[in-house]
């Protein structure tokens, strides 16, 4: 009896050890298998020894789903415990899986936010890494599984294609962002070259201060990257649409504009100043992108407690907005009082800044000045006003809610803007998943460590390699 228990324990121990060894030898990787972009359902695959652990952590249970059955589960982010999505999990224990290793498939809703959420969650699981091109197929081959997939082109190039798509996404991206990344990449490459030169040619290099320069550059880039990545961690925007706030003085046609966008009388419109009190929200599809319009109360000094509350809400909504449409009544200004027009514009913008709690949004806030009621003034005046504002560096659009003039232009402008915003969000998502969690951490810490040791350069090397 005793020996039996002992034998069992030994077996357990050996199994434990061999598992440990296997863990060391095999990494666990994950990737979106259904391609990037918005789709109905997205499939994210995880394979490797840590797969079961990842599934347990993300479903908050200790039981694995029934093998090879589709199980509907709630999927949580391990670090925060937040619900990411409800989706199907397919669990294929080794060796009966595509790769021959433990494999799990997460079938989730195909929105970018959900995908990002799942990827972030997976990345949080210890020992999981984003897959490189061809990783899954290679594993399948190594484990003698590839022959099962006799159908040409089933698994073979999927990941290579994903890689190509990633590159294409980078290429197509908004010029200024890609330039930023290129700039970082270039300076990091130079840092690596500088450090390696001081290591390999220390006899020949007389100039001092190279390492100090590198230290400064890396600290600077680390800072930039950090704020860049963390600022844009707003899954909400992607989930619920870009938050566009329509703001401005009372009775300039904000509610009319909202109604025009959603093609229905969503907000009450009247010639009385201060009709809108509460925030009226409507989701609208602009150029294929979900946009959440919020019509707000007109901002003016008011004694009415209800209107005051409305104005407060308007301001708080502006402070969390991704984009502001500042509506002004063109008929109330002419060329002579252009100065006052500008002043009031700036006042409204600066006012919301004063109340702003979130400093991050302060600098990035993007707005468009919408000059309404063009039907009440002459074209000439309108154009001159627009020109003046444009010269001041403000994007301006002239419309008439009454006749519908210029609405097409406005929609076009907005959809361009949304495209920009979505792309800038999409890219960090792809970009972020290329980072290994460890690297990110060490990269963040580089400013506190000294570059002069040869260790730090490895970090820069890795970061540069992965970020490229």
């Amino acid at each position, binding site marked *: 009896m005793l020996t039996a228990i002992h034998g069992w324990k030994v077996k357990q121990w050996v199994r434990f050890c061999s598992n440990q060894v296997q863990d060391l030898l095999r990494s666990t990787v994950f990737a979106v298998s259904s391609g990037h972009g918005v789709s109905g359902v997205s499939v994210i695959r995880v394979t490797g020894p840590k797969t079961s652990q990842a599934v347990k952590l993300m479903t908050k249970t200790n039981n694995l789903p029934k093998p090879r059955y589709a199980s509907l589960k709630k999927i949580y982010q391990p670090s925060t415990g937040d619900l990411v999505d409800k989706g199907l999990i397919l669990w294929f224990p080794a060796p009966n899986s595509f790769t021959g290793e433990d494999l799990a498939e997460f079938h989730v809703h195909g929105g970018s936010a959900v995908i990002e959420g799942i990827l972030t969650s997976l990345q949080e699981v210890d020992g999981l890494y984003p897959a490189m091109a061809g990783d899954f197929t290679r594993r399948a081959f190594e484990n003698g599984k590839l022959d099962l997939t006799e159908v040409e082109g089933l698994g073979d190039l999927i990941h290579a294609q994903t890689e190509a798509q990633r590159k294409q996404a980078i290429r197509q991206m908004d010029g200024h962002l890609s330039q930023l990344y290129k700039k970082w990449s270039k300076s990091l490459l130079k840092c690596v070259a500088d450090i390696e030169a001081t290591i390999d040619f*220390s006899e020949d290099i007389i100039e001092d201060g190279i390492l100090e320069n590198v230290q400064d550059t890396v600290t600077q880039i680390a800072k930039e990257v950090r704020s860049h990545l963390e600022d844009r961690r707003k899954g909400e925007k992607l989930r619920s649409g870009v938050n566009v706030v329509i703001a401005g003085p009372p009775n300039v046609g904000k509610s009319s504009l909202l109604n025009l966008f959603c093609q229905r009388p969503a907000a009450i419109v009247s010639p009385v100043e201060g009709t809108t009190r509460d925030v009226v929200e409507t989701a609208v599809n602009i150029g294929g992108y979900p946009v959440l319009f919020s019509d707000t109360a007109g901002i003016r000094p008011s004694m009415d407690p209800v209107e005051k509350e409305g104005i407060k809400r308007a301001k708080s909504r502006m402070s969390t907005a991704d984009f502001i449409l500042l509506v002004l009544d063109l008929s109330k200004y002419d060329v002579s009082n252009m100065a006052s027009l500008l002043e009031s514009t700036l006042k409204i913008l600066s006012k919301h800044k004063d109340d702003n709690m979130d400093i991050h949004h302060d600098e990035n806030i993007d707005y468009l000045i919408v000059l309404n009621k063009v039907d009440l003034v002459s074209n000439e005046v309108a154009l001159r006003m627009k020109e003046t504002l444009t010269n001041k560096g403000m994007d301006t659009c002239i419309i008439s809610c009454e006749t519908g003039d210029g609405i097409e232009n406005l929609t076009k402008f907005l959809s361009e803007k949304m495209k920009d915003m979505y792309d800038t969000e999409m890219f960090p998502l792809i970009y972020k998943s290329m980072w290994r969690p460890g690297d990110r951490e060490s990269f963040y810490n580089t400013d506190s460590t*000294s570059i002069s040791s*040869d260790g730090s350069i490895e970090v820069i090397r890795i970061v540069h390699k992965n970020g490229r």
Partner: protein
Amino acid sequence: MAYEIRNLQKLRFIEKFRYRLCHDLAYDVIVVGGGHAGTECAAAAARNGSRVALITHDLTKIGRPIYQKSKAVIFLYYKNCDMGEMSCNPSFGGIGKGHLIREIDALDGLCGRICDTSGIQYKVLNKRKGPAVWGLRAQMDRNLYRVNMQKEILNTPNLSVLQGSVADLILLPGMNKRIVEGVQLAINFYTYKLADGNIVKGRSVVLTTGNTIVHGGRINEVASVGLAKTIEDLKFNIGRLKTGTPPRLDGKTIDYSKLVPQYGDEKPIPFSFINRTVKIKPDEQSLCFLTLTNPLTHSIVTKNLHLSQHVREEIRGPRYCPSIESKVIRFNGRNHQIFLEPEGLNSSVIYPNGISCTLPEDVQISMVRSIDGLKDAELVQPGYGVEYDYIDPRQLKPSLETRKVSRLFLAGQINGTTGYEEAAAQGIIAGINSSLKVKGMPPLILDRADGYIGVLIDDLTTRGTSEPYRMFTSRAEFRLRLRPDNADLRLTEKAYKVGLVNEQRFKKMTKFKATFNKAISMLKELRFSESGWKERCNLSGVRHSGEFKSGLEMLINSRVNLSDISKSFPAELSNIMEDDYLRSRVEIEGNYLNAIERQDKDVSELRRLEHMTLPDNLDYTKLGFLDEEEKDKLSTVVPQTLGSASRIDGISASSLVQLLKFVKKYKETKILERNL
């Protein structure tokens, strides 16, 4: 039989015994050339128990004066790299190169030990940077090094030295002449006549000398033609490289008072793992001096550029050891360092490191005299350039055996490298593998995660080279683990298993390893919170934190060292603190703990790919999924593993996956065919 030198009486007996056994007098391994590759190679094969013949030009030159004004003698001296001769700079090691010497020593090679007995100034470069990139370097006494090396070689059991130069390779007839079975020696002044038309038979041959295939005008002209023609007939791709050497100065004519002296280390670090000290006493070390070129020097060079042989020709020169002409052209307006290095304890010859050139002698004199401290300097010998053919190393397997001719190995400058250490590293690998080949055993292949030797050979055999290849730390992606301090732990056991390292050294290494591991595990068991550590050991550079860390993990922080920790744990650490050598090694290991853990995954990934072998005889041109460029590249390199295929520039990920698939099927068909 040829003129053989054997020093040990008892060996003569063994040799005789073997002589009788081998009815055809064949050697197991024939090594052609007694340079740094050749000597390491022959010694390695001999250690492995093979009967080795080392063929070198002229043995009798031991003790002959090195420099004579007569050009003919100098010419002969330099062109015929004598056994163990340092043909260029009188120093060993450097950044990346020091790593190689340590690794060669871990494989029981010769050069590390000989550097420890022949050095006259030891200096570790990069000392201010991390220990992973320290460059062990030493000035050698040129004569002493050669004499010590020759002593070592002549006293190596199983190793005979034959004098002569090789005229041709003997290839086994039939089989498209794809197996080498010996060499034919040239009949000339130095060679004693042999029976059978001067044929030396051997079961494998290692070519280590580049000069044998240099065309025209050389002392061994007759010899070259046959070998060069054979190599040409075998359709080896051949390229041409050039290198140069600076003029040598008479030290008595140098005014040192104006120059900056360069001292050696107070405590020289030996190259070999079996030594704790070097032979020379620290305060008896020689001095080097530093001087700089100036605008006058540059203008003399610029005016005479049209006379420079190097500038006129379009052959690739060494980028990292450029001639003064190329420095002046490339870095206009900057002064260049010149290190004045003594060539020996009893020699007044000075090697001015940094002004190699191919200018006419009179221009060289005026150039040298324009430099600070060298106003009245006399040239002992002018600088000159050498051109040599090299064989594209992509035609080699990682064992350094040629793919075209079985049992023919190449090592050293002939593979397009520059530097003694690079040559020696290839030599030792070619040596052991030629011996293992004869024994029918699998070759010893070091991968990129094993050592710089692995990096060197992988770079050469998968990427080739278009300029003289030299080692750098930046070539090694795993350099934080490939440190000079741990080469023995990385390599000695591996080498012992194939019979390259003797019992004694292996035991010494295992004994040290046990002590070392004990110290490491002891440090791992000391666990406290960071704040705990801070208070206990009074550490200023440590933050307050509740995170538990082991003693080893504390060493990751560069501001913590073992003596800090030992203050609070004198009993536990007494073993480590008593032994300086052990202490420094434990400390370094601790420093890199973090980085190494991070690299482990990459290493296992690399090894996994390295284990997937590709068939040698795969016809890449018939694989439709490759594009033309990939076909071309893969056919030239013929990668042995999927890992090396992935490192060839321009092979796409999708092609690699397809290749995997194809090979898998291919292998299965082969097995099927065999079974039928």
